[in-house]
């Protein structure tokens, strides 16, 4: 639990100092997190990848009319890395691997941001409701969560995406349906714990409404493990999403890492290793970087769980 004192019931001018305390704590937290070299390395990779995703149109000229489709150079099929105009080589169908690597970062960023936003919102809402209300509501919601957790993640997402039909949008939808449960469970446990604190009783005594107690006291003090999980999921979602598109659930020719690995697969027996290797390496680095950062944040917030 990090910021217990930051969310004492604050009135009028005290609000400002509470804000200041929170900012100071965030600074301290950031400094502690970045003191660990592996966490810092993770963050550096993330900044690089996200930068690449945001600046993609300025690094490689976007394919028109649709920039998220791979451009095809029919004059340079399966050329090795280092060929003129194709720094990382091309696929069997003349797709430029460098284009896929860079625009794939953009696809992955979009995927992970959308899915994490939806799943955190839904999970936090469901978990808070269950934890705050307790009783019947809690019982019903948590049984639903249990059922969702009984189906292995990838298999569940695969089945949903398959039934909805192959497209990248349906991959996003499938991942959103699968990934919210973890947040619900984490949030419920947190809320149940936090609502027993004395400052919550104090807020009740002074007549605060349920909503205000939740918003001012319970939510800010419950949210940190959700932040850790969200950081880890920024990586995991790209990992699972790329796996689904590798299996063939995204549109063919999409500039996405999993699609590209799948496209390059047919060439490996002929020694054309590059089309699969580079985009797959990107998935690995992406997931690794967010894992390192997530672990780093967790270590600082909760020094008891030394998981390494």
């Amino acid at each position, binding site marked *: 639990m990090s910021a217990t004192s930051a969310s004492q019931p604050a009135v009028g001018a005290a609000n400002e100092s509470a804000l200041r305390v929170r900012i100071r704590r965030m600074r301290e937290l950031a400094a502690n997190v970045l003191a660990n070299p592996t966490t810092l390395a993770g963050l550096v990779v993330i900044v690089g990848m996200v930068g690449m995703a945001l600046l993609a149109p300025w690094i490689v000229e976007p394919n028109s009319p649709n920039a998220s489709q791979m451009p095809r150079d029919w004059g340079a099929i399966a050329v090795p890395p280092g060929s003129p105009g194709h720094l990382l080589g091309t696929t069997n169908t003349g797709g430029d691997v460098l284009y896929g690597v860079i625009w794939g970062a953009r696809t992955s960023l979009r995927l992970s941001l959308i899915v994490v936003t939806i799943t955190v919102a839904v999970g936090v809402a469901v978990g808070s409701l269950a934890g705050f209300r307790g009783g019947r509501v809690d019982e019903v919601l948590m*049984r639903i969560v*249990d059922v969702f957790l009984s189906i292995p993640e990838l298999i569940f997402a695969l089945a949903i995406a398959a*039934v909805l039909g192959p497209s990248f949008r349906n991959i996003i939808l499938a991942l959103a349906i699968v990934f919210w449960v973890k947040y619900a469970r984490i949030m419920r446990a947190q809320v149940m714990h936090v609502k027993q604190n004395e400052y919550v009783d104090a807020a009740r005594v002074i007549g605060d409404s349920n909503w205000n107690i939740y918003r001012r006291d319970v939510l800010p003090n419950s949210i940190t493990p959700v932040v850790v999980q969200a950081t880890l999921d920024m990586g995991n979602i790209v990992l699972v999403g790329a796996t689904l598109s590798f299996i063939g659930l995204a549109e063919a020719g999409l500039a996405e890492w999993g699609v590209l690995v*799948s496209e390059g697969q047919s060439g490996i027996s002929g020694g054309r290793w590059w089309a*699969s*290797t580079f985009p797959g390496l990107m*998935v690995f680095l992406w997931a690794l970087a967010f894992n390192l950062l997530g672990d780093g944040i967790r270590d600082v917030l909760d020094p008891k769980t*030394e998981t390494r």
Partner: protein
Amino acid sequence: MLPFLIIGVSIIVFGLTRIGGSPVAIYLSHEMSSEEVAEIEARYHLDEPVPVQYAYWARGLLQGDLGWSGVAAAPVTEVFPDKLAATMELAVASAIVAVSLGIGLGTYAGARRNKLPDHLTRIVSISGAAMPLFWFAIVMLIVFWVYLGWFPIGRSTPEVFASISHPTGLYTVDALVSGSFTAFRDAIWHLVLPALTLGYGATAIIARMMRSSLVEELQEEYVDAARAKGLAERLVLRRHARRNALMPTVTVIGLSFGFLLQGTIVAEIIFRWPGLGRWMADSVLRGDRATIMAYVLFTSVLFLIVNLVVDVVYAYLDRRVVLGS
């Protein structure tokens, strides 16, 4: 709890069969009149309310009716056992790799905290969680199949496979039963690369847990006591610390089994392994609903049962746990 979860999963699976188009679409054709369509829908009880439809569907399930697989061009239940045997062989081999390697590495690293082996193990375990299996498998193939040529691809050499009978469908076991060393070597030779590749992620999970719980155990007082009475460090580790450190590790073995189970899909695609996972992948691409649903149900139930077994084993190892509370 288990029956409740199984019913819950079956409701989700049933729900999946009802979204995105009519479940009888494969029986329909454009020439049919609307009366004929209605007749077919009535035959499969689709004109009934949804809960009644679920009841019919669940009854079929319990009677072993899993529908018709378009991909295999046969009833799902007919194709299932052979594919299951192939997948189980791969999954069990990977589990053996993951458990032995994971516990071994974790112990080795935990006993040498902050020394080089510990750092190397840490790299293995951190990268394991982030490793895209579909990429790792391809890299392994490029190195060991394309360039070095050490391992083959697929499940068997066809001539050798045909030379023995297959009563169990588990190639290694069949080879042993028929006493053919050639076939056994062929089976193992084909199994090594996919099992190592698939087992990597689970190895990482287990090694990480084993390492951290061993480090914790080594700080306990009973370890000091054992050392004080002059027990060799090797024996302190083997008789005392490792045994206790295994307990928390058992709990993650269930988790890593889920990891392995999901991984078989990708591993079977890449290593051309004719199991359930590849059948599932083909079915996903060709919209073979019956197979998809059977697969989801089966793997979830298996996953639940494995986790139940893990709980029981844990309770057995740790007498402080009272089951059913």
